[in-house]
C-alpha cells in the first residue's frame, strides 16, 4: 500500500464519497448561484480548483511551521481566512494585469471564492487527521485533498448546471419554480451519490 494508493483514496473520497457539496454541505452558495449556466459553472469550477490547491498548500505551510510550533492553533480561523482573502485578491489582480483572457475565464469568479466556505473548509480539514492513514495530512496529501475537493465541487457543479439547463425547458409547477426545484434536484443528486458510499478500492 504505497503512497499513491493513499492519494487515490483521498481523491476518490473527496470527489465521490464525501463530495463537498452533495454530502458535506460545504460551498452551497456558489453551487446554487453559479450553476445556472454550464459556461459559468465550468469557469467557477476551474477557479475553485486552482484556489483550493493554492490555499491548501499555503495554509498547510503556515499551520505546520508557524501555528503549531508556537501552539497557537486557535488562531487558525483568523490566519487562514486572512491568507485566503489576500491570496484570492492577489491572484485576481495578477490575472487581470497579466492574462486578461484567463481573467475573463476564471478571474471573475475569484471574489466569490473568498467567501466560499469550501476553501476555508478544506484548509481546516487539512489540519485534522487523514481518515485513510489516521495520521495528520502530509503536505502532498493536503494539496491533493484540496485539488480533489475542488474537482469534486466542480463535478457536482457541472452536473447541476447541465440538469438546470434542461430544467429551463420543463414546465415546473409555479410553487417550485426557481430555487425550490433546484434544491429538490440537489437532493435527488445526493440520493444518487449515496450509491458511492462505502466505495473502497483497496480493501
Amino acid at each position, binding site marked *: 500500500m504505497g503512497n499513491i494508493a493513499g492519494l487515490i483514496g483521498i481523491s476518490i473520497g473527496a470527489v465521490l464519497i464525501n463530495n463537498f457539496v452533495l454530502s458535506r454541505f460545504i460551498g452551497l452558495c456558489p453551487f446554487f448561484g453559479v450553476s445556472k449556466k454550464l459556461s459559468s459553472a465550468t469557469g467557477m469550477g476551474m477557479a475553485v480548483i486552482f484556489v483550493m490547491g493554492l490555499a491548501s498548500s499555503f495554509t498547510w505551510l*503556515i499551520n505546520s511551521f508557524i501555528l503549531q510550533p508556537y501552539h497557537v492553533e486557535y488562531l487558525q480561523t483568523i490566519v487562514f481566512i486572512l491568507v485566503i482573502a489576500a491570496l484570492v485578491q*492577489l491572484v485576481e489582480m495578477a490575472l487581470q494585469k497579466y492574462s486578461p483572457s484567463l481573467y475573463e475565464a476564471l478571474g471573475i469568479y475569484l*471574489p*466569490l471564492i473568498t467567501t466560499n466556505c469550501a476553501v476555508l473548509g478544506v484548509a481546516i480539514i487539512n489540519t485534522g487527521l487523514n481518515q485513510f492513514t489516521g495520521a495528520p495530512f502530509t503536505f502532498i496529501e493536503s494539496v491533493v485533498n484540496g485539488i480533489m475537493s475542488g474537482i469534486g465541487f466542480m463535478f457536482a457543479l457541472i452536473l447541476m448546471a447541465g440538469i438546470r439547463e434542461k430544467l429551463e425547458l420543463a414546465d415546473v409547477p409555479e410553487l417550485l419554480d426557481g430555487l425550490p426545484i433546484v434544491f429538490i434536484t440537489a437532493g435527488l443528486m445526493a440520493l444518487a451519490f449515496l450509491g458511492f458510499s462505502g466505495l473502497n478500492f483497496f480493501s
Partner: protein
Amino acid sequence: MLIPVVIIGVISLILGIGLGIASKKLHVFINPKISEILRVLPNANCGACGYPGCSSFARAVAEGNASASGCIPGGPKVAHAVADILGVSAGTSEPMMAVVHCKGGTKEAASRAIYNGIQDCYAASIVGNGSKVCQDGCLGLGTCVKVCPFGAIQISPNGVAVVDADKCTGCGKCIKACPRKIISLIPVVHKIYLACANHDRGAKVKKYCSVGCTACTLCVKATSSGAISMENNLPVLDYTKTENFIPAANKCPSDCFVDLVSVRPKANIDTKCDGCGACVPFCPVPGTITGEKGLRHTVNKEKCIGCGLCLDKCPTHAISVWGAGSSMKTRQSGQRKG
C-alpha cells in the same frame, strides 16, 4: 499573550504591504459606473444573482446585460439605487403609451377558418396568415402580452389585445412583437385613437367587421385642424397638431375610435353668458347649445360630447367644462399645450 499578537500582526502586515504594492503595480482601469454600482450592492458575493460575484453582476448591469433588480439579497432598495446610477428612471420625452389599432374581436370580426396550432400570433400568421378574414386585425393570441414587461396588455374576453393605460410605460416592446404591426405609441395625454388598421375598401370591410373603418372620411370632415388625413383608405391621426379628436371620434359611424376616458366632462354656460350665440355654430353636435339670442344659453348635457371647441369662442368666457374629474385635467392640459 505576545505570540498571537505578533503572529497576527506580522502576517497582516506582510499581506497588507503585499496587497498594497500589488494594487499599485497591477492597477487596471475599470468603468467607474461598475465600481459605483458595486458600492451600493451588498457585496456578499453570494452568487444568488446568477453571476459569479458582485463585481461581475455590477459589470453585467453596467453593460446592460442584467436587470438592475437582479440582486436578491439587496431587495428593492438596492435595485432602486442601482437604477439611479444607471439613470434608467430618468425620463426626458413626453410620456407615451401603446395602443392596439383593432377592436374587432370574435363578436365583431368574422373568422374564415379555425386556427389549430401554437397559441402565438407569429405562429398563426405563418399558417395561412391567421384565421381572421381581416388581414390587419388583432389575432388575439397574446404575443404582445408575453413580451410586455409590465403586464400592461391583456387579451379581452372578446379576443383582442387591450393595453392598460395605467400600467403601460411606452417601452415599445409590444410594437416590435406584433406580427401585424397594429400597435403604436400615442402621447399619454391623448386618450383617443383609431382602433382599426384595415386598408380595404369600405364595402368589403362591412362584410367581415362591424367595427372596421369604412373610410367614410366623416372623421376627417369633423376636424377643422387638418389633424386627420386619409391614407390608403384609413384615417391617420396626427397627434402633433392641436386637436383632441373628440368630435371625430363621435362622428365615426362604425365606432372605430376608442376613447380611454369613459365619461367626458360636459360644457357648462354660466351667468356671464350674454346670449351672443357665437358658440353655437362651432358645436359639432347640432342642437346641443340652445337659447334665444340675448338670453343665457344652455347646454344639453345629454348631447354634449365635451370636445371643448366652444370654450375659446365665447367672448365673455362664460363656458367651462367640468364634470368628470381627474382624467379631464390631463386631457385639458394636453389640449392646451397642444
